[in-house]
């Protein structure tokens, strides 16, 4: 069964990456520690400016943490395997590229969810955040809807190291930085200069944050947030196939120019 075969192969990536997490456990703990500290310091800024701000800011920190994990795991997967020296082995496996990248995305979502949950637990312990007003279910659904868009972005970012082994990974970081700046992670996008607000409009994270805050701060229902979620889903449904298409072009380019791997 072709489909069964491909589905089973996605598990290769999930298992491999969790094995890697286990083997690099010290680093995982350090990164997690850093994420927690980051969320806390941002939360404390909220404490100094007013209690309403705490939730606004911690939602930003948590969501950004989650989206960064997705973007990073998918976007850096090519650079990482090139560094490990396994890239050619993975690329010549008898599976579809969709299976390979899908496996990476499934891992990223599971892993990102676990990490964000841990950070959330610590944050909730430090600040007694009131979630009485919050509509947690809408919040969760916003997260699911925006995962698609971020996976699409990650796929586009993943192609950069295929085009340029030296500069691709640098470009990925710059892209991530720009998204952080323009998406209103810790402030309303309205405070940005006009020309930067143009970029806010095309960043899916802008809509994720707006919708997540509406769900968690104002308790808006799924029905009320329907249009926002639909927008995120549509962005995702455009970005994922587009990302795959661009990835395929990049792969073909790498196979023609010898950029997949140089030495050996």
């Amino acid at each position, binding site marked *: 069964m072709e489909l069964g*075969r491909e589905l*089973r*192969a996605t*598990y*290769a990536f999930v*298992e*491999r990456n969790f*094995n*890697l997490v286990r*083997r*690099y456990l010290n680093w995982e703990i350090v990164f997690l520690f850093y994420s927690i500290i980051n969320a806390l310091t941002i939360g404390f800024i909220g404490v100094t400016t007013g209690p309403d701000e705490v939730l606004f800011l911690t939602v930003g920190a948590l969501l950004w943490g989650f989206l960064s994990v997705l973007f990073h795991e998918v976007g850096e997967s090519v650079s990482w395997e090139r560094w*490990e*020296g*396994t890239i*050619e*082995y*993975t*690329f*010549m*496996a*008898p*599976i*579809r590229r969709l299976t390979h990248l899908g496996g990476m995305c499934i891992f990223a979502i599971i892993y990102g969810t676990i990490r964000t949950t841990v950070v959330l637990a610590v944050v909730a312990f430090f600040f007694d955040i009131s979630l009485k007003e919050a509509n947690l279910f809408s919040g969760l659904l916003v997260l699911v809807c925006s995962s698609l868009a971020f996976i699409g972005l990650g796929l586009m970012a993943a192609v950069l190291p295929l085009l340029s082994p030296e500069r691709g990974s640098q470009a990925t970081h710059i892209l991530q930085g720009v998204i952080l700046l323009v998406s209103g992670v810790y402030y309303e996008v309205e405070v940005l200069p006009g020309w930067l607000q143009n970029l806010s409009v095309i960043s899916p994270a802008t809509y994720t944050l707006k919708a997540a805050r509406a769900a968690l701060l104002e308790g808006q229902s799924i029905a009320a947030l329907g249009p926002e979620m639909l927008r995120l889903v549509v962005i995702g449904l455009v970005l994922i196939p587009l990302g795959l298409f661009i990835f395929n072009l990049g792969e*073909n380019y790498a*196979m*023609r*120019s*010898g950029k*997949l*791997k140089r*030495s*050996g």
Partner: protein
Amino acid sequence: MAAVLEDALVCTGVSKQFYEEEERVPGVKRRWFGRRKRPIHAVKDVTFQVKRGEIFAILGPNGSGKSTLIRIISTLLFPDRGSVHIFGMDVMKKRLYVRRMINRVSVEAAFFKKLSSYENLMYAARLYDVKPEEARVRSREILERLGFSPKKIYIPMENLSRGMQQKVAVARALLTSPVLLLLDEPTTGLDPKSKRDVQKFILEVQESHDTTVILTTHDMDEAEKLCQRMAIIEDGSFVALDTPQNLKAQLTRKNGHAVTLEDVFLELTGKGWEEEG
């Protein structure tokens, strides 16, 4: 049709060129429209066939284009010109199917260094749809035949010697039951014992499995010991293709005294073996 299937591999007129950015020379002004690219002809018009069940060696010094040719055969590089068919399937058009039939061992160990041999082998098994249970049994069996101590299968691969890592690489390739096995300098840099273990195993595989092997090497003794036919590659071109015995016999007749493969190489390329490097 049956005759066609006896050919495991058919390479026809394969060429590959890379472009390398020229080094920036201090003091020399860069041209404002960007750096010039220098073409490197890595593989030039290579044509050959390999019969099913054969071990075919490609012998050549460093930088002669062996790895590039292997990458083209293993669907990792597109040739600029020419075609490659594996059991009748075009490697460019039927990539997915070709990939199911082949596996490659490269010079450098392509492993997740922090993962154990077992974890790396399981990753391979899942990618190639080998059942985990079967993979466990088979990889142990192969590793044992290669003289790999089974206790070491659970420690991170970065703690294994190069010889051990290469044995795991061979096991990983065999685990997926390839009908065409591509070995790119599998014994380069190995200690003498590991080298012999790997060579012995390659011969065993050919006897016991329906596997065709393409082997690159810069070790003449290895080529002579393992292959039925061999090609000598130099600067991307095949300069000879025959059985090791015939290659030596031709020159022996010409020179009137017994020769080694090294003499053959010298005669064909006008270069000493070691001066290349």
